[in-house]
C-alpha cells in the first residue's frame, strides 16, 4: 500500500492504495464519490470520465497512484456553489439529455471539457467529441442539443418537435 494525496473537487484528500487501485475505485470506494460510474472494462463507455489537472480522462483506465498530487474534478463538484445545477447540468435537464442517468456523469464531464477548449462547437464537433461516451437511452439527440444549448448557441432546429 502506498499513500496518495490529491485534491478532489477542491478538497485535499489522501488514502492508502495498492498499485492496482484504479482512480475510479479510489473515488468510488475510498472517497464515497459514487457519481463516477464504471460501465465497461475496455476504456470505451466513458461513464467514468473525470478531469485530472483539467483534462478529461477515463478514471477506470488510470491508476490512483498516477493521480498522486493531481487536481481531480468529478461530477459531484460540478454544481454551482449554491448547489444549483451549473449551465451544462441545467441544459441537460432542460433538453432531456438523460434518461437512466448512468452515462450522464461522464457525458457532463466530457461536455465540460469540450466547452472549455471549444466554447462554440458545431453539432458535428459535439458528436465527434462524444466518441468515447456511450449512451444507450437517448440516441444522443438530446445530449447534443443540451451541449449546444449550454454553449449558448441555438439548438439545431428539429422538425415537428
Amino acid at each position, binding site marked *: 500500500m502506498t499513500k496518495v494525496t490529491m485534491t478532489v473537487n477542491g478538497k485535499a484528500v489522501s488514502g492508502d492504495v495498492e498499485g492496482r487501485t484504479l482512480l475510479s475505485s479510489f473515488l468510488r470506494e475510498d472517497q464515497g464519490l459514487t457519481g463516477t460510474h464504471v460501465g465497461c472494462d*475496455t476504456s*470505451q463507455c466513458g461513464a467514468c470520465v473525470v478531469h485530472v489537472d483539467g483534462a478529461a480522462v477515463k478514471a477506470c483506465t488510470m491508476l490512483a497512484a498516477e493521480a498522486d498530487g493531481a487536481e481531480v474534478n468529478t*461530477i459531484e463538484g460540478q454544481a454551482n456553489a449554491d448547489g444549483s445545477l451549473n449551465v451544462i447540468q441545467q441544459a441537460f435537464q*432542460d433538453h432531456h439529455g438523460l434518461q437512466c442517468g448512468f452515462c450522464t456523469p461522464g457525458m457532463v464531464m466530457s461536455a465540460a471539457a469540450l466547452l472549455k477548449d471549444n466554447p462554440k462547437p458545431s453539432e458535428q464537433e459535439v458528436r465527434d467529441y462524444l466518441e468515447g461516451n456511450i449512451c444507450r437511452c437517448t440516441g444522443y439527440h438530446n445530449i447534443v442539443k443540451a451541449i449546444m444549448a449550454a454553449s449558448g448557441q441555438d439548438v439545431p432546429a*428539429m422538425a415537428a*418537435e
Partner: protein
Amino acid sequence: MPKDTGIGASTVRREDVRFLTGTGEYTDDIVLAKQTYAVFARSTVAHGTIKSIDTSAAEAMPGVLAVFTGEDFVEVGGNPAGWLINSRDGEPMKEPKRPVLAHGKVRHVGDAYAAVIAETIEQARDAVEAIEADIDELPAVVDMNDALSGSNFVHDEIETNQCFDWGWIEDNREATDNAIKNAHHVTTLELVNNRLVPNAMEPRASIGSYKASTGEYTLHTTSQNPHLTRLLISAFVLGIPENMLTVIAPDVGGGFGSKIYHYGEEALVLAAAKKLGRPVKWTADRTESFLTDAHGRDHVTKIELALDAEGNFLAFRTDTKANVGAYLSNFSTATPTFLHGTLMAGNYTVPLVYVNVKAVFTNTAPVDAYRGAGRPEATYSLERVIDKAARELGMDPIELRRKNFIKPDQYPYASAAGLEYDAGNYDALMDKMEEVADVAGFEARRQASEAKGLLRGFGVNAYIEACGIAPSNLVGVLGSRVGLYDAATVRVNATGNLSVMVGAHSHGQGHETAFPQVVAEMLGIDPAVIDIVHGDTSKIPFGMGTYGSRSLAVCGSAVVRATEKIINKAKKIAGHMLEASEHDITLSDGVFSVDGTDKSVTFGEVALKAYIPHEYPLEDIEPGLEETAFYDPANFTYPSGAYACEVEVDPDTGKVRVDRMTAVDDFGNVINPMIVTGQVHGGLAQGIGQALVENTSYDENGQLLSASYMDYTMPRADDMPMFAVDHSQGTLCTHNPLGVKGCGEAGAIGSPPTVVNAVIDALQSGGRNVTHIDMPVTPARVWDAMQNAK
C-alpha cells in the same frame, strides 16, 4: 399553447437533479456494513461435462469466506420460463431445469459453475482462479439447423434441441398454403433478425443480505420488476416466503428487457448472505454482461407474401427458427410466439396469416425479450417483404402499403393474426410522415448526393405493435403463468402531500415526473407535492414491473383508478364537512364545492380531516385517505407508426450513413411529450444500431467473438443524425382510462426495416441489383453484396 403542468405538459424531469449531480444511487453504489464480495467461476467452453470441481485450494486462499458450486443448489428449484407454449401437435414445450449454478454440464461460455465469497473483490478473483474444475469439453451446438438435425443435445434429458414447434394460427395453415399456391404473385424473402446484446450501460449487480434474528432477506438488485423477481425467487427457486424477502431495485441504469429476468446471481448472493450472516455483493463487469445477460432477437426466417394482380395482400406465411440459447429465460418462450406471431398481419387487411416458429436450444447465452420483443422481428419480416414485393411489382412502396391498410372506419378490427385492434389511422400517419420527411424533396437530395459520388436511398415502413401487456385472462389462455395487471396505491398524507406507490419501475422512463402529472391533473393540485415511490417490494403494493411499453397503459391506469377512489372518498368527507350530499360535490382545481353554492373546502382541508377525524362520521367513513387499485387491461394497446429513412451509401467502401430519420407515431394520448420524444429517440438509435452496426457473433465453438466494446459496436453520437419525431396523429386507446398506448419500444420496432429498405433503395437506384442484405448492414456486407451483384 403547451401546458406547463399536468397531462400534456413537457415537464422537465425531477429525477434528473440527482443523476446530474452524481447523487443517484445505483446498486453498486450501495455499501452495506460488513459486505463481502462474490465472484463467479464461469465456463470458458460452450459445452462440457463437469467431471469434478475441487474448491479446497480456493477455500484456503486469503480472505475467502465460502465457495459454492452447483452441488449446493441441487435441492432448490430452477429458474422457470414464465410462459408455457404448446407445439402444433399439442405437446407442451421442453422445459429443462435452469439451476442457480451449472450442475452436471456447462452449456454456454459464461455459464457459472461456482462462486467465491471473499472479504475483497480481488481476493475473490484470486480464489476463482484457484478452483480446479475438470470440465470435459463437448462439441458445441451453435447453428440452429445443426441443432435441429443433430444428436448432440444441449440438454441430454430432453433428447432434442427443439423446445417447441408452434403454429399460429394453426387452423389457417391449409388456407394460407392454398392462397400462396394459387396467388398471382408471391414474394419470398429469407432473412436473419440479428442477435443483439441489450447493453444497458449499468452492468447487472446484486447485494443479498440476511437478518438472522428475524429471518428476513433483502435483495438489492438491478431489476425492472422487483415484485416479479421476488415471486420467482420465492415461489420457484429458493422458496423464501414472500413476506420474508424484500427486493429493492434502486436507481437502475437502463434495462431494455435484460433486467426483467431473474438471474442465478441473485439467488446466489441471497443464499450466501444467509450462510455467512453478512451481505454479499456481486457486480458484473462488461464482459460478464456480454456473456450472461439475456440477448435479444436471433431469428432466422423465411417469409412469403401472396398478392393478387392489383397488389392486394392475400396471405403472409412465415417459417422461423428462434434461438433460445442454452436455457429458457423467463419470457423467452413468449417472445418469438405470442409477441411475434400475433403481429404478423401488420397494419393490413390481409385475410390469412400463418406463422411457424421452432424454438431451438443452442450452446449460447439465453435469448429473451429485448426492446420490442417479438414485434421488431414481426415488423422487420413484414416490412422487408412488402418492400421487396413493391419492387417486384413495380409499385410505389408507400402506395402498396396504403392500398392494404386497415381504414379508420374498420375498427375494432379483428386481424388475421388473432388480435383485435381498437383504434388507429395509418393513412394519417403516412400523410404526416410524407410531410415531415419531405418526401417531395427526396429527388433533389438524391441528386446532390450523386454529385458527391454517393448513393442516396429512401426507405419507408409502417408498423403496428401490441403494448400494455396484458389482459390476464387472455394471456392465461395463451400459456402465461402470471397475470399481467399492475397496481398502485395513492396515499394522501395529513398535510396534503401525496405518496404514490407504483408497481412500474422507472429506469430511465421518467415515471417520477410523468405519474405525478396524471395525479395532479385529476386532483387539480400542484404535481410538486406528489412523490412517486417505486422499486421496493416493502413499500409498494404489488407490481408486474416495466417492460412491453406497459408502465403508463397498465400501471398508469391503476394510478387513475386509485386516484378515482381517493376522489370518491374525499367527496364523501367534503360532503360531510360541507353538510351536503357527496353527489352534489364537484372537484375542480383542488377545491371541493357544493354545486350551486359558494360552499367549498380545499383538497388539503379534506386530507387533514381524514387524518384528524374530529366531528367525523366514523360510522360511514373510515379515517385516512389511502387507496389501492389493481388494474388488469381489457386488451393490448396498439401503437402504430410510419417511419422514413434516408441513407447515403459510399459505393467505394460500402459505408452507410443515416442522413435523415423520421418517426411519426400514434401513441394515443401523450402525458409528457418531452419524455415520449426522448423514448422514441432512444428506440431509433437501438433500431439503427441493429440495422447497421450491432453484431453478436459466436464462432463454431460457441465462443462469443463480440464480447466487449472492442468488437460489439455500440451506436455512438457520430453515427446518429438528428431525428424528426412527431406524435400529433394520435388516436385514443379505447379501453384504458387515459387513452394511452405506450411509446418505449416503437423506435426500435419501426426503424430497422426502414433503414434496410433505404439501403436497398440506394443500391438499386445506383444500378446495383441488390435485393437484400442481412443486418447489421455493415460496410463489408454492403461491399460484398455489390460485388455479388456485378
